[in-house]
């Protein structure tokens, strides 16, 4: 039996504490804005802080997975795919591992929903909302920037909207998720690496600053 524990249930930030939160990259927001470019070879970078994230472990194909899927209203994703959209999604991380992503403040509800669905079966659901922050990289040159840091094939024939992967950008482990065709990506990174990853990305973007 899983006992919902108090701290996890409240990481979804009760009203009073929201102002006390700081995202890992809030001190660089102006810099990211300044280093973003528009136009035919433009690329933009900004932080999407505080997304709700639940790490989900479910035995593949079992009764638990269909119960969880029903509770979320989304099918569990197939290999390296994302089920849902940027507002409510499940990302494939591994054969029995997924990441539920939703807007800020949804973690408590999601955690309860999933754990209810898992009750009596095997699996786990852990709030990891504060574990990673999210970078949004978009613009016509976004793929070119990623290609400097990531050895995956990101060509549209091979990686497109709704695809995700756990991979390396330079030496940083990230969850890479393509949102749209522009292309726009979400890069989910553990907070301690966020500053360094931004340094890497801005360095890779420098080429496009001069248009």
């Amino acid at each position, binding site marked *: *039996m*899983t*006992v919902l*524990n*108090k*701290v996890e249930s*409240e*990481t979804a930030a*009760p*009203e*009073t*504490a929201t102002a*006390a*939160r*700081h*995202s*890992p990259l809030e*001190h660089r927001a102006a810099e990211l804005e300044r280093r973003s470019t528009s136009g035919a070879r433009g690329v933009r970078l900004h932080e999407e*802080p*505080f997304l709700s994230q639940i*790490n989900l*472990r479910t035995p593949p194909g079992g009764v638990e997975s269909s119960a969880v899927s029903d509770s979320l209203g989304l099918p569990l994703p197939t290999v390296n795919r994302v089920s849902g959209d940027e507002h409510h999604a499940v990302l494939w991380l591994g054969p*029995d591992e997924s990441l539920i992503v939703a807007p800020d403040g949804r973690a408590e509800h999601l955690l309860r929903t999933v754990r209810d669905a898992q009750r009596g079966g*095997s*699996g*786990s659901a*852990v*709030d*990891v*909302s*504060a*574990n*990673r922050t999210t970078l949004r990289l978009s613009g016509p040159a976004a793929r*070119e920037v990623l*290609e*400097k840091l*990531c*050895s*995956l*094939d990101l*060509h549209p*024939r*091979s990686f497109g909207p709704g695809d995700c992967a756990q991979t390396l950008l*330079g*030496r*940083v482990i990230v969850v890479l998720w393509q949102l749209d065709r522009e292309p726009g990506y979400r890069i989910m990174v*553990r*907070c*301690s*690496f966020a*500053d*360094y*990853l931004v*340094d*890497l990305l801005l*360095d*890779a973007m*420098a*080429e496009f600053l*001069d248009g």
Partner: protein
Amino acid sequence: MMSSSNPNRLNASVRPGRIDRTRTIHATVDGRAVPGRPGDTLASAMLAGGDIEVGPSIQRGRPRGVFSADCTEPNALVQRLDGDCPEPMLPATEIELQDGLRVETLSGVGWLSEQRDTAGYDKKFVHSDVVVVGAGPAGIAASLAAARGGARVMLVDQHRELGGMLLDGQAHIAGHPATEWIGRAARELAENEQVRVLTRATALGCYDHNYLLIAERRADHPDAPPSPTIRQRLWHVRAKQVVLATGAHERPLVFADNDRPGVMLASAVRSYLNRHAVLPGREAVVFTTSDSAYSTALDLLGTGARVPAIVDTRPEPPTRLVEQVRAAGAHVVTSAAVVATGGEHRVSGVRVRGIDGNGSLTEWSAEFPCDLLAVCGGWNPAVQLFAQSGGAVRWDPVVAGFVPSGAGGRSARVVGAARGTYDLAGCLAQGFASGAEAATLSGFRTAPPPVPQVDGDRQASRPRPVWLVPDESRSPEECTEHFVDQQRDATVADIHHALGTGMRSVQHVKRYTTISTGLEQGKSSGVNAVGVLADALSAGSPGEVGTTTFRPPYTPVPLALFAGRTTGRLYDPVRTTPMHRQHVEAGAVFEDVGQWKRPRYYPRGNEDMHAAVLRECSAARTGVAVQDVSTLGRIEIVGSDAPEFLDRIYTNGFAKLAVGKARYGMMCGADGMVLDDGVSMRLAEDRYLMSTTTGGAAKVLDWLEEWLQTEWPELDVYCTSVTEQWAAVAVVGPDSRTVVGRLAPDLDVSAESFGFMRFHETVLVGGIPARISRVSFSGELAFEVNVARWYGQALWEATMTAGSDLDITPYGTEAMHVLRAEKGFVIVGQDTDGTVTPVDLGMDWAVSKHKDFIGKRSLSRPDLVRQDRVQLVGLLPTDTTTLLPEGAHLVEPDVSRRPPVPMAGHVTSSYHSAALERTFALGLISGGRQRIGEVLCAPVGGRDVEVEITSPVFYDPEGARRDGPEQG
């Protein structure tokens, strides 16, 4: 017909060349201005100005001249001076002329600058269905065919424009000059968005599974932007299929004084004529073993140069060619060879002798004046990339070169001159066929396009290679002016010297003579050396001698290119906690712990580390101190079998741990050696939160997953890393209860309600949810406050505020080390080294006798129960101010110091203690626990330091401080 500043430049009406005549640009060579046109190489500009001589040779100081027009250049090597950093050993034949280019000529060896290279280098990772290396006719054809099939195609060429050898010649395709066909193809490829054409890009290596490395030069040419962000880019390319259309390199000929300036490859002469509109000499003898040099002769004659003779080793060159050159005004000498050259700093004439079917000189002789000797010893298919990727080569006597061996598979995708096909129609046909096949094999079914009508090039007749033109008077052993490798000044005599020492293998001869070890890496000298060796060993063919090994890179590149962006601050990830900027503002001195930046100490005023650490330790023992412990690893372990799992992982029991309680746990490897330690809390019946050391977090998660996935898949357990879900501070010291009480107003922090090794969930001031535990790594009353990571900054601020009137003192890793050592608490990795068991550490209390766990069986092995194993003890230097170096060895006081000296053990941790008012240490000493009170010696810096063995617990051995002061 020639301009004065460029006396050897041909008028546009004679040869337009691939240059921009509307602009003049200048380079500086050895301080002298060298004018030229965009499209020139440094070598072509020098030749246009009448300069053929370059730096003298490396060993013998012989005059040398521009010899080639490509990457095989042995002589015209320069040091570049104008870039971000002086760059050594660049062939002038490969440098594009541009304004401001400044070089000095070299004598075969450059110099490394101590200046930092500030230019930009980066990498790019792309994937492709078909990669075509080389944009000559075969490569262009392959790209067209593959692209028409819809495949993702990448075409790579080292030069600035597509065309390859077509740009050196006068061929026509489909009734038009070849350049028109190239232009149409270039447009077609550019318009196809699935095609990427990389020019000025050299495929350095071709590896397993069609992985290629390609170096692209984005700067250092007239078309580059003024200050490009990136000078060179290393492309990592994963291809489904690779087509190698790498062309061929012309071989020099080996005869006496073949290194004199003015001796030049026939193909290079033709390239300078047609590509750069430069006539390198006015009176040119052509010395050849095959057909291709006849085109050079015809081009020379067509631009007004005199050709006194075409010397052909073959008795019967094709009549068609002989008549063509005769009609143009030159005559052919057959069965002949150049045996000597005259002149000092430039060739002034040649002596020619007849050469019979056995390669011996005949009596016939003649002499011809000349200022240029164009030589063609045949062609070497550029099989480097093919061979690097595992392809075998064989000697083909018909084309007289090493060609890819075998008919199918990988070899089928080597096309054109790279497989010994030298006629244009053949190159196009092979290119189209292989491109279509490569596309089809990568999933884009397509047929090869029809081959257009071509002229200006015919299938070559059989060459007659001559590896060594005999000297007129000396034996081969004495041929000290017959150069095989001009850059290394290595000759036929050197090869015979190697043979004289008993060497037979081409690999040995290469290393002994240094032939092929220079910049050209055998592209020019390699096969000639094999040929000379084959003759000397009376081998049937060069194929019996074989080649040396082809290794990447294809041409040299700066090491900075391989480093890319991973230098300086981008070298390795820097991990920081949410409180990092607060530590910076507090003046913390940081320590690298793995990739983490952790505060080591927080100096106040002019404090050094020693003073700061004493102060921080005092605060923890007498007041209140706070440390950021957000770097500790955390793993949430969930599932109905989680209790059983932890029982197996830890040496001590966790299944019976009550919900709401925490326990210190130790884990061992299967060998019984300490792996990691930390405190785990039981959050629920089926849910634990494990903590690990900062450095061990990733390793421990891997360890848990390995056991779950490979050994115990039946267990219902899931592990999730939550290291960065949490931020945490340790609040330590007698006043910590007051501080935590203020931080968590809803929580009863009294000793009665909040016992040691318990945890509670609560809401802090400001509404921050928290989990607070009572754990201590110092022996003092202490609390660990955990909040969601994004509250880390707020937590630190609130803690400092709550303790401001108590002089709450932030402390770093150094004070933490001292505090725990005073209590004899070990740090895994500092007091252990992978050969230490929990029992060695005196931690039998953490090793269960009642259950099985990883490492249990090992702990009863005879070697692990020896009485003389090293054991953790305390060490007190007799002199209370002497600080033992960590790692110092300890010996018996009376032992002889003649090596080998038996060691009693070593120091693992050593500090100054504020609480003890003296220095102290921990160490691992053989049988140490039985030796408490004895004295050992630490030989340090030439003197002996006396050390007493003690218990490892120096401070508060009865544990009276753990619950803090009595509350009044």
